[in-house]
């Protein structure tokens, strides 16, 4: 069976994002019931974002294992420190913000 080298790049991006986000103490999975959870975890959305971001840089012409590794690392840092600020919780789901009203 032939596996395209690009598949390994996606695996590297995904693994790097998963491992670094766990090191950064993001939970592995959101709490149950997951479908109602807003928690940012290692699997969702960090791993999904990692392969999506790698697809973006791949299409922009930057390819290879090192690029995949860097994409995974940046995605984990983005998920940990920036994502909540870019797309915050809606006010009704955020008890802290509600208490200020």
């Amino acid at each position, binding site marked *: 069976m032939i596996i395209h080298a690009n598949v390994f790049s996606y695996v590297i991006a995904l693994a790097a994002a998963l491992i670094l986000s766990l090191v950064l103490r993001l939970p592995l999975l959101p709490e149950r019931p997951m479908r109602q959870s807003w928690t940012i975890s290692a699997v*969702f959305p960090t791993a999904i974002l990692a392969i999506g971001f790698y697809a973006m840089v791949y299409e922009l012409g930057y390819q290879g294992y090192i690029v995949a590794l860097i994409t995974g690392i940046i995605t984990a840092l983005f998920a940990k420190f920036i994502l909540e600020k870019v797309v915050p919780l809606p006010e009704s789901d955020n008890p802290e913000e509600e208490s200020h009203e």
Partner: protein
Amino acid sequence: MNEILGIILAAVISWVNFVLIDTWMGLPEAPGVKGADVIGRSIKERGGDLAGGFFQGNIVCSPDASAGTLLAAVGCYAIGTPEGGLIAAVLVYFGNRLCADPGYAGTTGALTITVIIFLTSYIGFKPEYFIMGMVLAIVTIQGLYHPGASRLLGKIAEKMGRHTKLT
């Protein structure tokens, strides 16, 4: 593969993909935003099912598996498989979060249809079949007869244990 047959089969696959994922992710259980609540209750008043109405309201108000399926098909057509579908999944996630939705349904729908497009490409399906198929699939839910579609969605929700507890 014959184009018309391909579009019809793609419509069926897309319909099953987004309805099952959206139901599994709890769209019929409760309205995510006020607009979905209004749509659900309006459909119920016209003889529909409340859970099915919430489903229809939710897919209007935020990009769920229906939008994920359509955008991933568009991405695969415009950029390539699987890159287009993976990029679509990221964009759908951000769209979800901006629409007061945690983003599980939309992202899952985009990823599953990307896998389906990749696998069905071996038997002659093209991404454009899934774009057209998804448009047809969403017309059957949102464009023909709301009360009838909501009753069908309500029955599916009941079978999957996702019927609403609200009245």
